[in-house]
């Protein structure tokens, strides 16, 4: 499977994602600059973490208007895989590709630690290498990861299995329903605050994140 890793001014997990795909997953990957307008029909898109456009106005608000995002929206509409990690999750919410929004952590602190996630839906293309209830040790590093969505939308999301990951043992950031990752109704776009690309090798302390990338190859 071919991958494209987006790069915005201020992206800082793009190289980690690139490394995870090329060197660990052993799949072809390229960078797609924010001013590019092309996503190929056979590519999976990774929207990486960081602080695109300095998080000005709101996290992800300005990245959403980049030329590349129009191509990502088209790719998503065609059913191609789009994975947003951390700031990438925030961008996908701002772009309307995922429901909800991410606001400041309840405790106001930037939280950087390894957390335990519980798989809430293992039937997505991102989680088919796991089973419901499996736990994954994956790091988080964010100040705005507090997921918010209105009650009606949340109900619909739960009915459609769109809650994919929850923080096991409670959300450290105040997230509604301990939500750590969600997908769209069609199941081809996933956003998550934890960083699976930082947990792909035992050397990094955990290789649990690799299961998410491996699921995409199945």
């Amino acid at each position, binding site marked *: 499977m071919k991958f494209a890793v987006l790069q915005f001014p201020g992206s800082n997990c793009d190289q980690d994602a690139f490394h995870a795909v090329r060197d660990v997953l052993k799949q072809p990957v390229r960078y797609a600059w924010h001013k590019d307008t092309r996503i190929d029909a056979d590519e999976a898109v990774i929207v990486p973490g960081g602080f695109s456009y300095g998080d000005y106005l709101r996290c992800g608000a300005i990245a959403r208007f980049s030329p590349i995002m129009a191509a990502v929206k088209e790719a998503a509409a065609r059913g191609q895989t789009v994975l947003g990690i951390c700031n990438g999750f925030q961008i996908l919410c*701002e772009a309307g590709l995922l429901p909800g*929004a991410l*606001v400041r952590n309840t405790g106001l602190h930037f939280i950087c630690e390894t957390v335990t996630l519980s798989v809430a839906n293992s039937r997505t293309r991102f989680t088919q290498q796991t089973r419901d209830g499996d736990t994954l040790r994956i790091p988080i590093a964010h100040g705005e990861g*507090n997921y918010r969505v209105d009650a009606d939308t949340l109900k619909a999301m739960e009915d459609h299995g769109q809650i994919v990951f929850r923080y096991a043992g409670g959300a450290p950031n105040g997230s509604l329903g301990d939500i750590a990752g969600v997908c769209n109704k069609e199941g081809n776009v996933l956003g998550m605050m934890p960083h699976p690309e930082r947990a792909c090798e035992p050397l990094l302390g955990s290789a649990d994140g690799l299961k998410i990338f491996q699921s995409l190859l199945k």
Partner: protein
Amino acid sequence: MKAIVTVTPKKSILDPQGDAVRKAIHHLGMECVESVRVGKHIELEISGTNVEKTREKLEQAAKDLLSNPVIEDYKIEIQ
């Protein structure tokens, strides 16, 4: 023309920043402050004189970019 767009967190959304400011104000001895919401004040200088058209365009900008309707409300004031 000058326009001011004020963006505030929705009432239903917890505002951790506002809450931290509220607690700090209490440390100043102002226990009477019951609630604080922190928002954004955005000033725009706009060419042209058609207030109605400008307001229309600003509505669009406020909805699409300046605020996120999932979590924020906005108010437009044209001077």
